[in-house]
């Protein structure tokens, strides 16, 4: 069958894609590169006449006004590259999802190109000014990713999936006679990440069965028992030793003892589902319920940033579909290495943080935008500790009428899979994400990276919501880590089921049964469907171009039975599969905080005005604090028309909102959803307990700042930690979990969902372990009775008063001032503990909420990284108005830049001042100053002028690019 090779290029050489790549190349140090032109490659297999090729190009492959195409039969003697230029070509590896190629085949059929069989796409780069060796480094470093792509200097052959014969191979895995070393060898060889006790439990089971496990059975157990799926560490029995002299103690499950315990003690009636479903669920307005889930996709994003983040978003959206909710918002919190890092400082096998950032951000954008889900809240943090191990937290919020989500599969229901075909993508993702990465991970675990197709998932939404309303299914869950093995296994955990793998639609032949069963191919949901409803569901799927596969039935046998072409390849007792995992016993040490730096204090130093202004501008320009607009604006935060408080706010729409407020279309009345988060790795490095308290406080405070009811706030916890087998690392985890518990009780804010991602470490080719800072993300979801009462952080009107509400106790421990001070090489401040949370704080938030609900507040903004000065500056930026502030007595550096918990700046009109102050009777509240017409931040102490900065300077610093 002939193959034709089409090259599509833009008429103008300065097309934005090429311009962007040229800039990236220069930023990576390829300054000799004088020209880069990016072109598209399309390979077509089929019987086409020259006229048909011409027609195909014009009607399908190009935009005739802006592009031209050339083509010829392939293979053919390679054409000479343009004089003085080199050509690098890139193609997807065979089997990697290629949605564009699929669309070409579909559309060509519509257009009547009957002879066209298959298509495959690629990229072609024309480079000028580089030697061959440099071109190869550029290809490796920027133009291609070996995990999913092949590249070559010169012409590349097309990537049509190999037509290998369909494989029914099932291997036996001899375990019964194996000794300890033998068992561990099996675990390693199959990348199962199981320890000896777990392997021995499996061995004992099959000894009882009197047979060896099949590879399907072993892989299924490995996935089901992976850290990712069962959270062994959070269920482990932990012996805790306190080096600070405290009593040693035992924790029987971090999750039970701290997280779930907090939720049970609070026992909020409006929590409808916590920890049992794919996502936590709370009541919105009595008629509707809302769900929230946050997942991490760290390891995949480290080796293939676009695909990793892309499928991270797709996965968490399916979690919300898994509770039969309509997705109404996405959140994303991202942690990267320093963008300025030099390639030489990076561990071997690690992508440059710049490339990880641009890939991850593009992946989030692609999935959220194409699904039509607004991305409305998030954060981006930078720390050298994330260079080898970026963190990608993806969240989704859903809504549904109350009590529509069915949870009970019935005996005789069909086991139905909806969505895309199954390939080798994402094999062993669950175990992969439970392992420390090394320099080879990229190659070995290449198969662990999935490629997303958001339009297929949009089809799932279009089918599942009406199917729910028509009660067509009795249970639903998503295909995530572990693929069908986890999804079907969990849904059948009670009844048991029998499925036939030959009924799974494959993207290409040749998959072994265990690969079909374990594949993490994206965009698939598993439903339990009563047989009589199957025709109606099929019809719904046909209307929305969604595939339906009927794999088998729920039997009531209590056993999980999997066949391939009739032959049993897996037969496991659910009791063993879901309850046979031995509890881990781990050791932790606490009380060993890193020594506080003994650096001399800045106290007593006479502080010059320039020291203050330089510090403020440096803080505003710090990548953790500076504007994220360049990222926020490539996310659609308006689709679905519900975004009442947007991520960027103020007169120029460029100031940072504390939280976002949504009024989902469809929900009657004016009730709204508020979303925010809290995260602080700087605190985490120093004191995990106080860090956890502080980030819960921040997540709550951000919601209160926009007007959410502090009595109706639910929390999600996402722990990203290093290797829990290291006692210090586990000790910090214990401390953080304890902090979560205490903070949740203090604020009466229950946890409704959570996830942990451990082993975020990287074993560099240099033999060094690179662990991330202990990182806890608290995502918060709140309810407000009337979105029209929401408040934004931008200053509203000259003459209004500015108050400081809350227990103000600024400290420098873990502060960003400490960061810039040491970076600046200036006299740094003394080491101090990180801020604690005051017991009065919940009452402060309650008072603030009452005044907001009463319409007494014009603007509110919380004090976080950078302290009071940064918060005040951001409010000035928001309103393009000035502030005249007079500080209370004390060290100006500490008052302006020290960090505290529990505090907000509040703008109040003079005529409301009395009522506002009355609401805070007996609570910490201070008047700081007034909003000024002249756009300048003017600060004095006890009447003595300290400094004055024009708002334009604040804006300029704040808008420093993240690069």
């Amino acid at each position, binding site marked *: 069958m002939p193959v034709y090779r089409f090259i599509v290029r833009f008429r103008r050489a300065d*097309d*934005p*894609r090429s*311009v*962007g790549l040229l800039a990236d190349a220069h930023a990576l140090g390829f300054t000799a590169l004088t020209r880069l032109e990016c072109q598209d490659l399309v390979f077509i297999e089929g019987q086409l006449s020259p006229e048909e090729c011409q027609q195909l190009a014009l*009607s*399908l*492959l190009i*935009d005739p*006004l*802006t592009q031209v195409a050339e083509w010829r039969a392939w293979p053919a003697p390679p054409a000479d590259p343009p004089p003085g230029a080199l050509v690098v070509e890139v193609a997807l590896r065979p089997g990697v999802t290629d*949605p*564009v190629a699929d*669309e*070409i085949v579909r*559309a060509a059929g*519509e*257009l009547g190109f009957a002879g066209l069989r298959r298509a495959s796409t690629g990229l072609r780069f024309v480079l000028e000014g580089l030697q061959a060796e440099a071109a190869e480094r550029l290809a490796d470093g920027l133009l291609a990713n070996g995990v999913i792509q092949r590249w070559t200097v010169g012409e590349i052959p097309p990537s049509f999936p190999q037509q290998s014969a369909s494989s029914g191979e099932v291997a036996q895995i001899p375990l019964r006679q194996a000794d300890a070393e033998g068992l561990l060898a099996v675990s390693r060889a199959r990348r199962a990440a199981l320890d000896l006790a777990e392997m021995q439990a499996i061995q004992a089971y099959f000894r009882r069965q009197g047979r060896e496990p099949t590879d399907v059975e072993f892989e299924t157990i490995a996935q089901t028992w992976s850290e990712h799926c069962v959270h062994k560490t959070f269920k482990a029995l932990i012996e805790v030793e306190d080096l600070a002299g405290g009593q040693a103690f035992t924790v029987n499950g971090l999750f039970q003892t701290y997280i779930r315990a907090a939720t049970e003690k609070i026992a909020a009636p409006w929590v409808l589902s916590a920890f049992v479903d794919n996502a936590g669920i709370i009541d919105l307005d009595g008629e509707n319920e809302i769900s929230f889930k946050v997942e991490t996709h760290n390891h995949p994003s480290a080796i293939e940033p676009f695909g990793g983040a892309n499928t991270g978003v797709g996965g968490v959206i399916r979690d919300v579909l898994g509770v039969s909710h309509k997705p109404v918002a996405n959140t994303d919190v991202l942690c990267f290495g320093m963008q300025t890092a030099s390639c030489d400082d990076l561990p071997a096998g690690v992508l440059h943080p710049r490339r990880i950032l641009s890939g991850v951000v593009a992946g989030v*954008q692609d999935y959220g*935008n*194409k*699904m*039509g889900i607004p991305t409305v809240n998030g954060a981006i943090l930078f720390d050298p500790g994330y260079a080898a191990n970026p963190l990608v937290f993806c969240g989704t919020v859903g809504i549904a009428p109350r009590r529509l989500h069915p949870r009970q599969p019935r005996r005789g229901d069909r086991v139905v899979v909806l969505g895309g075909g199954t390939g080798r993508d994402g094999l062993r993702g669950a175990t992969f994400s439970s392992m420390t990465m090394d320099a080879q991970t990229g190659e070995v675990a290449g198969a662990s990276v999935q490629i997303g*197709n*958001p*339009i297929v998932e*949009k*089809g799932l939404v*279009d089918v599942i919501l009406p199917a729910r309303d028509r009660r067509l299914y009795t249970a639903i869950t998503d295909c995530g880590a572990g693929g069908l093995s986890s999804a079907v296994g969990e849904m059948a955990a009670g009844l048991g089921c029998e499925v036939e793998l030959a009924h799974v639609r494959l993207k290409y032949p040749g998959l072994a049964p265990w690969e079909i069963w374990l594949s993490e191919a994206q965009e698939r949901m598993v439903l339990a469907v009563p047989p009589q409803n199957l025709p109606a569901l099929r019809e719904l799927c*046909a*209307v*929305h*171009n969604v595939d339906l596969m009927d794999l088998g039935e729920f039997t009531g046998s209590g056993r999980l039975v999997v066949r391939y072409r009739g032959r049993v390849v897996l037969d496991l007792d659910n009791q063993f599969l879901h309850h046979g995992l031995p509890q881990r016993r781990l050791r932790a040490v606490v009380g060993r905080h890193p020594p506080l730096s003994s650096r001399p204090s800045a106290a007593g130093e006479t502080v010059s005005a320039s020291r203050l202004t330089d510090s403020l501008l440096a803080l505003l320009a710090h990548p953790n604090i500076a504007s994220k607009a360049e990222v926020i*604006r*490539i*996310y*659609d*935060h*308006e*689709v*679905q*028309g519900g*975004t*009442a*408080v*947007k991520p960027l*706010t103020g*007169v120029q*729409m460029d100031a940072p909102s504390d939280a976002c407020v949504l*009024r989902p*279309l*469809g929900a009657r009345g004016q009730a709204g959803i508020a979303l925010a988060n809290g995260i602080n790795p700087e605190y985490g490095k120093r004191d995990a307990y106080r860090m956890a308290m502080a980030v819960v406080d921040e997540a709550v405070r951000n919601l209160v700042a926009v007007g959410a009811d502090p009595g109706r706030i639910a929390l999600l916890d996402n722990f990203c930690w290093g290797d829990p087998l290291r006692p210090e690392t586990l000790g910090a985890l214990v401390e953080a979990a304890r902090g979560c518990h205490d903070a949740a009780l203090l604020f009466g804010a229950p946890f409704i969902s959570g996830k942990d991602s451990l082993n975020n470490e990287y074993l560099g080719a240099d033999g060094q372990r690179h662990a991330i800072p202990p990182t806890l993300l608290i995502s918060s979801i709140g309810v407000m009775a009337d*979105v*029209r009462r*929401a*408040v*934004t952080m*931008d200053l*509203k009107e000259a003459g209004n008063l500015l108050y400081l509400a809350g227990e103000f106790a600024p400290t420098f421990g873990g502060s960003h001032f400490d960061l810039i001070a040491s970076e600046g090489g200036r006299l740094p401040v003394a080491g101090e503990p990180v801020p604690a949370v005051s017991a009065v704080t919940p009452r402060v938030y309650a008072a603030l909420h009452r005044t907001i609900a009463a319409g007494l507040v014009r603007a509110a903004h919380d004090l976080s990284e950078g302290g009071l000065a940064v918060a005040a500056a951001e409010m000035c930026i928001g309103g393009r108005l000035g502030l005249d502030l007079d500080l209370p007595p004390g060290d100006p550096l500490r008052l302006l830049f020290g960090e505290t918990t529990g505090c907000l700046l509040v703008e109040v009109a003079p005529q409301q001042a009395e009522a506002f102050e009355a609401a805070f009777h007996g609570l910490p509240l201070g008047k700081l100053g007034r909003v000024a017409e002249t756009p300048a931040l003017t600060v004095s102490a006890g009447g003595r002028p300290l400094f004055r900065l024009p708002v334009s300077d604040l804006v300029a610093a704040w808008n420093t690019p993240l690069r």
Partner: protein
Amino acid sequence: MMTKPKALILLAHGTNRDQDAAEALTLAGAAPETVPLNLLREGRRRFDEYQMLVLPGGFSYADALGAGKLLAIDLRAYFSDQIQAFVASGRPVIGICNGFQALVKAGLLPGGTLTFNAGGRFECRWVTLRPVSAACIWTRGLEDLIACPVAHGEGNFQASEPLLSALRSGDQIALTYVLPDGSPAEGAYPANPNGSLLDIAGLCNPAGNVLGLMPHPENHIHPWQHPLWTRRAGGRSGLPLFENGVRYAAQL
């Protein structure tokens, strides 16, 4: 009172602003129905059952091979006659964002193309629009500026000089990007967010009943959607455009 015009909201594979459009049309007095493309293909719904046609925003077929391109091929392959007849009958048609891209690439709006934003990236931000065409039944008689978001990566309208002058003389330039005070953007970013020639945000056909536009007036139909509502600014300025179309359909 007269019966509400039935509006067909076309749901293609990857359409995602259909409910936003439905909300706007409902508020504007129409009776919208979201219809999956396959139901029209199978003849279970017909275009002529409706008085209005809406092609909403989204990423039909993931925008593979160019935004709106594959949806345009669908429209030509399956519905060419039905849509021609619908347009010829003078009934109002509106294509928003991805729908605009599809109308242009299907030849239902004058040539030219919507290519990648001059800035090289998808962008979501609020813009200000001036309704300028008296020939377009959607913008005719609208005095006030429209504030609403854009959210696209391929909204940069490019066309030949002859076509541009034809659009001008035919009063087919329906909406232009302007500064918040109403003065012309003159191509300057961000008021003109994508580099479109003549600050063109929306176009109509010579008859004036088919409008295509990149921005999303359907996302400014409630006061609290405006980015400055907490500063007591704004107020559903996206709605009159839809009310215009519905009123016109109602008196057909």
